[in-house]
């Protein structure tokens, strides 16, 4: 952005005013991205309805009646029908959002914190530390993600906690690699050398010079990872590794309704629609975030 543009944007302020901060201009760019806003709104609706589940769900998600087994979509009182034990599908989808979002998002948050920190440390360290961290990372890359997630949670056993642990283990190396390569690039810049010349401590350089600059590639990667994580977490639940049965979760609902596929085919694909909608929205949001954060590239 040139000075003339700046001044015309805020004519009443003197030329000495600072240019809008990085995060603010990223926010402004995001507000102009229609696809990004639309997907953020859909996600917001899903998250809010999951949080407000006790208020808005029409029925108890875990109690059903044999009298109303597998009623079709549009049944009075059961807008999206009922499952094989007569439980209301709409209520289960709303409640299911809690566990599905929790098990999709938490591992990415944990992996971003752990992998991001280790990646920055590896990127700023000498050859020895860097070599050790990165070679261990390479080993985890030798496992296809789903295989590793299934194997770890298969051995650990059922339960939300175990799903979160296995997915975090799968994602830490991926975030780590992104953080490391971004850090190595930044650490070579002149301003980091300048900071070193002022005898600033390594920790200070890390937090004041490197961190703000590697944050955006890490965040862009993390949002795209949420889409993957949601799909894999629901997949683990789909094959019966994950939350214990009566609890509503999209992946395990998909599995339960699969048995009724010949009786009520439309019902059996519904939970998947929720997984797809959430995952597509996170992917689109990640794309928007990517182009909003890449200010230098798009300003050309």
């Amino acid at each position, binding site marked *: 952005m040139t000075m003339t543009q700046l001044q015309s944007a805020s004519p009443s302020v003197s030329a000495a005013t600072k240019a809008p901060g990085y995060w603010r201009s990223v926010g402004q760019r995001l507000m102009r991205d229609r696809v990004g806003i639309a997907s953020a709104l859909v996600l917001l609706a899903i998250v809010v309805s999951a949080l407000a589940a006790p208020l808005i769900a029409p029925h108890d998600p875990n109690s059903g009646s044999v009298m109303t087994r597998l009623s079709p979509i549009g049944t009075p009182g059961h807008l999206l029908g009922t499952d094989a034990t007569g439980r209301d599908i709409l209520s289960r989808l709303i409640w299911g959002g809690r566990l599905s979002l929790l098990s999709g998002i938490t591992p990415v948050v944990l992996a971003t914190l752990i992998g991001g920190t280790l990646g920055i440390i590896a990127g700023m360290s000498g050859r020895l530390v860097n070599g050790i961290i990165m*070679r*261990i990372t*390479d*080993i*985890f890359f*030798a*496992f*296809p*993600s*789903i*295989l*590793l997630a*299934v*194997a*770890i949670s*298969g*051995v*650990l*056993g059922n339960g939300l906690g175990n799903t979160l642990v296995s997915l975090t283990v799968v994602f830490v190396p991926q975030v780590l690699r992104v953080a490391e390569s971004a850090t190595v690039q930044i650490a070579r810049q002149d301003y980091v050398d300048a900071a070193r010349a002022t005898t600033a401590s390594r920790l200070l350089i890390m937090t004041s010079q490197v961190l703000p600059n590697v944050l955006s590639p890490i965040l862009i990667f993390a949002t795209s990872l949420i*889409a993957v994580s949601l*799909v894999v977490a*629901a*997949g683990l639940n*789909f*094959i*019966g*590794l994950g939350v214990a049965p009566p609890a509503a979760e999209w992946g395990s609902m*998909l599995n339960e309704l*699969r048995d009724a*596929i*010949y009786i009520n*085919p*439309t019902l*059996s*694909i519904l939970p*998947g629609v929720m*997984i*797809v909608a959430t*995952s*597509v929205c996170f*992917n*689109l949001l990640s*794309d928007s975030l990517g182009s909003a954060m890449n200010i230098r590239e798009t300003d050309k």
Partner: protein
Amino acid sequence: MIRYALIRILSAIPILLGVSVVSFGLLFLQPGNPVEALLPLEASPQIAEMMKQQLGFDQPVWRQYLAWLQRTVQGDLGVSLYDGLPVAGQLGGALFNTMVLAVPAAVLAFVLGGALGLIAGYHRNTWIDRSASALAIVGVSLPQYWVAIVLVVLFSVTVNWLPASGMASPDGIPRSFSDLANMVMPVLALMLVPMGVVARVVRASVQDILSQAFIAGLQAKGLARGRILRHVIRNAMSSALSVMGLQFGFLIGGSILIEVVFNWPGSGQLLNLAIFRRDIPVLQGTVVVVAGLFVLTNLAIDLAQAAIDPRMRR
């Protein structure tokens, strides 16, 4: 080239060792000690002690690992705790069945994804590009297991054209149209994600190549569009190959969800059964072999890339 190949092959060895350590370590993640998991609850402590000695669990961990590694390298993956059969034999058959689906899925994904990416890259920022890219992003976001269920609803439940599950011929090799019919939906479901990924990579790579000076040079020389296209494809091939190598590994490692939906007796199904039977040798064997194959596939792709493109040999 030979020097590069040698270095690349040697560098795979520590990775393979690391893979074996992680696969072996899985045993220690399970709650309780491994012997308890094998024995019925009412077994006496003496029997537990005997079992422990017999299976080598009284040895220090590193010795257990070395013994396991030695057997594994020799192709002995132990016996299943569930039916007492050798793991290697079961796994071999199951892996073959997985390949029967993964190979056609990979080929289709590579060809269709490549074509999609090429078309999108050539028509940059037109509606063709945008719809091809939209298709690719949806392909990447879709859970394969859900696509599989939708396919079953469409083609088995609604119109009854294709069988909903199972593998028709006992040895996996399709011999008739009805055997092939069993493969159609699993292959389609497996193909979608790698196709989307390949399309996205090829699109980016084609756009990059088209903006380079040598293309303008070829155009200035008066070369026909078709001849230029050949240059573009050759240059885009290498990045497409490298993602496809990764994706092929994901197809084999991620086949578990598709194999569960279609009840296909492959390595994923075997892993699934091993988990629910708490059959650790089968689980360990499947994990170490599939991950090992993944490493070797990537090695092969790297070497193939270096053979095609000398710039990669650094």
